[in-house]
């Protein structure tokens, strides 16, 4: 059996990659994908502990996170598409209309 620490390490790597992606990339679409990666990294951790501690709540929580992520993507993508149609770009650095 693969030891649980392997899963946790993989999850940490995925999370770090996702966080770096959010901070570094300028394309809104790629940032979204990075956020999804972070969410799934967390899901992986939850599943791992759920198995390890033999507690079903972790899995329930994962389902909840997935549902929220789906909703978030639906809204986020709609915004990105709308913005792209308007400005012909998905560069977040150009989205600064609301600043001072």
């Amino acid at each position: 059996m693969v030891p649980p620490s392997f899963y946790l390490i993989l999850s940490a790597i995925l999370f770090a990659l996702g966080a770096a992606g959010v901070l570094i990339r300028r394309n809104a679409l790629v940032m979204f994908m990075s956020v999804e990666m972070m969410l799934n990294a967390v899901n992986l951790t939850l599943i791992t502990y759920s198995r390890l501690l033999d507690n079903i709540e972790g899995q329930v929580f994962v389902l909840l996170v997935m549902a929220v992520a789906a909703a978030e993507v639906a809204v986020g993508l709609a915004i990105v598409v709308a913005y792209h149609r308007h400005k012909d770009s998905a560069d977040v650095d150009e989205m600064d209309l609301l600043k001072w």
Partner: protein
Amino acid sequence: MLDYVWLILLFPLAGVLINALLGRWLDRRVVATIASLAVGASFVVALLVFFAMLGLPAETEAGGNGRERIMPIFSWIVAGEFEVEAAILLDQLSILMALVVTGVSTLLHIYSAAYMHGEEYYNRYFTWLNLFVLMMLILVLGNNFLVMYVGWEGVGLCSYLLIGYWFEKKSAADAGKKAFIVNRVGDFGFALGIMLIFASFGSLAFKDVFPAASTVLPGTATAIALLLFLGAAGKSAQIPLYVWLPDAMEGPTPVSALIHAATMVTAGVYMVARCHTIFEASPSALNWVIWIGVLTAFFAATMALVQKDFKRILAYSTISQLGYMFVGMGAGAYAAGMFHLTTHAFFKALLFLCAGSVMHALSGELDIFKMGGLRRKMPWTFATLLVGVLALSGVPLLAGFFSKDEILLGAYESGALIPWILGTLTAALTAFYAFRLLFVAFYGKPRMDKRTQRQLHESPPVMLVPMVILAVLAVLGGYIGLPRFVGLGNAIDEFLHPIFAGSLHAAPAADHTALEITLMAVSTLAVAAGFVAAYWIYVRNWGMGERMTRSAQWLYDIVYNKYYVDEAYTEVIVKPLRILGDFMTEAVEERSIDRAVNGLARLVGLAGEGLRRLQTGLVRNYALAMFIGIVAVMIYFVIRSIWAL
């Protein structure tokens, strides 16, 4: 029937609601009819309750008051220990007041329907009038001090609104404000008194407070009594707070008759009668009451001697007669005071209605020296005014005679000799100014201009009928309180006896027919002297009044200007307050508070100006800030958990 006593309050309330909400779209006749019917129905209920009450035994088997009922309406305030229930207290005193209030109000409403005919805010007038009746009834029927206070403030409000009814006229608006502010001084005392009552007795209900009145320290009782009396002095226009009542004559005449003669101004007398146990628990409070009362009676009567304005003469007369009532209260002759309150309500309302009738005929003229000879042109008004004047001055066999003598007898019996002398002197002055009013306005040659003279006319029957009814009451009203020596029993004294049973002078004194007759003869002589003097000066030797005025011009000036009390109040109270107010506006409000607030606003603005640079608009900056924040929080928790190990 006793269970339906709440109907007394319901009818005026309905009248207020209908006329306030729908009055604008209703015909004038409908508005007046609704208002009059509302109060009339209330009067009928009060009458039925009164007769039902007479059917009950005056004393229960346990020796209590058999005619007293407390009817809860709703629980008003419940906060821990503090409980106030809005309930109706029905007993002899409250039903007497309710009868006087609703009875006189009904007549006044009918009179108003004609008198106010041409006025613009017809429905507003009747709404306020009905509201006044409602508030007055709440005042007299309340079972605790807080409910009484609601009525107390309510009638004050209605008084203010109705005095300032012609608010386009500056003097009327000012008079309304003056009445309100002067009353506020008294109400302040009343409110403090109520708080002190709660602090000392732990309850505000009459049934808890009065039996316990003798258990508090005499000093506390004095403080409570004097604070309550300050409230009474404000509402009932006694020294030093009487100044608002003469100015209140700016209101419509039926309002003067109803509120500023018959009902509202007697609220103070009622309150003192209701709280007599508290006043008696204090060694000195009743002395204050009797002295303030008699001084007010005397000085107001002297001021009435020289006034030229029909209604102002009556206003000073009202103050003076209220003084009499307080003499009765202070002497412990509570029933006599309430008796005078009742008869005064009849004849003073009548006199005011006559004033209204005269104003109606003379297109608003009020100076009695510009009238004269009205006797033949206005026979009905003359006849009713004559009855009113006779009753007011205390001519034997009319209402004022019996009630005033009861009070003077009470004062004499209680040993207050100087108040008795002043009171008798006041009786002479009263007769003088009352007959002066009658003689100057209705006898002699007409002194108005030709045009007014041609237009002179008697008032319509709608106005005359209430006047005639009040005149009948002013004659018959006295027979509910016949002197003891007549042997027929003093009906009002016996009726009210259970209320005042425990008071100091409750036990009927030993038979002293001789004393009673002597006192009566003395006061009748005083009245006769006043009458003869007025007849001599204003009928037989017309012009003598003017000569006398000239020979003592300085004295006349002082009295005519009401002893310069208004001016003194302006100098001593109003002006310093204005200076303080100006100081508060400029130094405190504008220079301190405003500047502090503005400075704070500027500080916040500057801070925002600096901090808005943080809002870069770049998503990645925000994400980085979040990331750093989360890492910081995590580091904190990690360190803390290591620390805990």
